[in-house]
């Protein structure tokens, strides 16, 4: 087993293709990804204002809109058509239209309507503009109704305008940051995908070099398949453990993402996750006739795997068949376990289901790898 381990180690470090996926990609890709999303939220979305009211009230509304962090008044136009030009030239993402009756309506106690037109090229523009406008109109509205009611005390006015108040508490990602939401899932996926790619390349190479396109050489045979697989696993595990620690512990710290898990919790997830992934990759490598095939087969699965993990798209809205597919891959449970512990502060007791699933996967894929790696001819002899 030790011999297999050393051989594999030597092979990894002499193969630049494998090194790319074991060292270079895991080092660079998470950092690059985190950099992309490091601004987290969409601020100061440029917006055109069409103010037909031209009253002190409408100017007050515009002033308050401009004061919000998410909206920036980029231009004023006389009508909607001219405002649309700004959107077509990609200089603005939305139009706020204040009707000519705005001030008159408010003064004569009629409900007035402000319109918002949003360019739907990104949902996040929509979210920013809608939140800003809703907050400002509700705020200004309650000021107006307080003035309107002529009640006895200020408190009474306030209660008449909103008898039931509410507070909203965003949990685990209070800023609503895009990076804090997506990156933890992506980090685990990077570990999953690069491990499979690296192992696939290594076994594809072995198959190309060995006589008869076999995964295992005859002279290794006396060791027994189980020992060959465990030896290789030990080697991949040791090399990759360092990378996985860098990805799950250093990257969130460098880029200031939420990190609630402590060292041992992360280890408790990483060990079954990596074992399951390595055995899964070894079992898959029977499909790779050429070393480069693994890239054609594995790389495109990254985005579908991310989607069925339940982080970008809620798991409650995944169809049964998608859920069934997601249970095949270690990434699903790895991502969920990591996000729950790391972003939501769950304890290991809360993720028993995921951990158990990962250990079961590790066992199943180990047996599958044993079966797949066993050359046909031996059984005949």
């Amino acid at each position, binding site marked *: 087993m030790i011999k297999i381990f050393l051989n594999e180690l030597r092979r990894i470090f002499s193969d630049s293709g494998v090194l790319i996926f074991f060292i270079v990609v895991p080092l660079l890709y998470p950092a690059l990804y985190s950099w992309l999303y490091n601004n987290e939220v969409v601020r100061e979305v440029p917006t055109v204002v069409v103010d037909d009211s031209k009253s002190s009230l409408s100017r007050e509304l515009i002033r308050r809109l401009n004061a919000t962090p998410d909206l920036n008044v980029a231009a004023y136009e006389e009508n909607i058509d001219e405002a649309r030009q700004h959107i077509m030239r990609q200089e603005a993402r939305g139009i706020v239209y204040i009707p000519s009756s705005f001030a008159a309506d408010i003064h004569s106690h009629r409900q007035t309507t402000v319109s918002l037109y949003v360019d739907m090229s990104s949902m996040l523009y929509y979210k920013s503009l809608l939140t800003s406008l809703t907050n400002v109109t509700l705020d200004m509205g309650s000021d107006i109704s307080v003035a309107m009611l002529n009640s006895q005390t200020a408190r009474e006015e306030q209660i008449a305008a909103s008898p039931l108040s509410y507070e909203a508490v965003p949990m*685990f990602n209070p800023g609503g940051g895009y990076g804090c939401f997506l990156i933890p899932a992506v980090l685990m996926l990077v570990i999953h995908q690069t491990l499979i790619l690296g192992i696939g390349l290594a076994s594809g190479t072995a198959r190309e070099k060995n006589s008869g396109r076999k995964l295992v050489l005859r002279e290794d045979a006396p060791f027994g398949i189980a020992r060959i697989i465990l030896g290789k696993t030990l080697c991949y595990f040791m090399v990759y453990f360092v990378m996985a620690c860098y990805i799950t512990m250093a990257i969130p710290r460098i880029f200031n993402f939420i990190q609630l898990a402590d060292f041992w919790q992360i280890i408790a997830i990483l060990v079954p996750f990596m074992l399951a992934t390595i055995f899964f990759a070894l079992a898959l490598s029977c499909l790779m006739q050429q070393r480069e095939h693994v890239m*054609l087969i594995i790389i495109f699965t990254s985005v579908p795997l991310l989607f069925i993990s339940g982080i970008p798209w809620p798991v409650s809205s995944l169809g049964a068949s998608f859920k069934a597919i997601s249970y095949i891959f270690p990434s699903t449970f790895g991502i969920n376990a990591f996000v729950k512990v790391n972003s939501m502060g769950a304890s290991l007791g809360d993720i028993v289901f995921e951990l158990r699933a990962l250990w079961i996967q590790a066992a199943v894929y180990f047996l599958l790898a044993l079966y797949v790696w066993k050359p046909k001819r031996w059984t005949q002899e």
Partner: protein
Amino acid sequence: MSNKRFIQSLFRVMKREVDSLVHAPIYWFSMIVFPLFVIFFFSELMNEGLPTDMPVGVVDLDNSTTSRKLLRNYDAFQQSHIVAHYSDVNQARRAMQKCEIYAFMYIPQNMERDLLASRQPKISFYYNNSVLLAGSLIYKEMRAISTLGAASVGSAKLQAKGLTQRQIKSVLQPIATDVHAIDNPMLNYNIALSTTIIPACLALFVLLVTAYSLGIELKKNRAKTWMTMAENKVMIALAGKFIPQTVIFTLVVWFYQYWLFVHLDFPHNCNFLLIMIVGLTLVVAAQCFAIFVFSLLPTLRMSMSICALWGVLSFSISGFTYPVTSMSPSLQILSNLFPMRHYYMIYQMNILHGYSLHYSWMYIVALLMFMMLPLFMLSRLKKIFYKYVYLP
């Protein structure tokens, strides 16, 4: 070389390429099977458009007629579905950490009594922002239901004071908003994501297959016979090799466009011919980019690795989800090096919104420039095909 010989050798190379495509199963998979899988996968995954009936919990300490009515009305909302009642906040929080629920509403003790006595009780909602989409959609509905709840209580009281319906409306919400989401009024996520993620996946296949099919010639030592067939003209060799692939990929892209814009009737404000041309442009630009990468790094593994990096980064740096304008300035410049970024801009400006082409000319020129890249590399490619020896 005469025209006739030119065409003959072109056809010879094309025939050779078709033979090798047909006989290697990996091409069947990565040019047809996987792309079709991706098309159906994403358009089916989000076919609801917006997630519905997401599980939420309730901590109702009041347990009065008013609170139960509020919750009943809330449960009728489309995107939330009350699955559990908890006796305290801690229990609800733990359920949230296990992702059994995405949010919970907390109704304090004596809410009804305080409401009747004008003591302005406060209800709270806690929502999970680590699952951003679920969190923000549920937040919107919870806010809507509490505004409605407040309105029904408020209007009863104001009616008692003798205000008319119109006055009540103006007291409760003096300024209403009226939101128009241009060209995607239902905020359909399928429209936002399938139209961008699927072509990015298809472009990824184009990049990888192009690099793979070039590299495999060197690896299998077939580059010299290939060049001889093409009468030593790199242009003919490349054209003959890639025209069959262009045809297959373009048909796949056109099928995707038919499936989304015609079969599923996704919004598009231009004629279908333009959509098809944009699809063809994406395929050719991606092919030419991959040829360019290969000529810089003429090994199978390096060119495929770079193409993979480019293809996978496209998903983020093109700005489908998190807009490029909110990234750091250096990344905004970098995004121009990705063919997918330009495709996305053309898609959203000309296809989705139907603006005229002169607003997006820069992106069209950029895609054309990607197509010219291999032209600068012809002599280098020739040298590579003749001299290079594959080292595993």
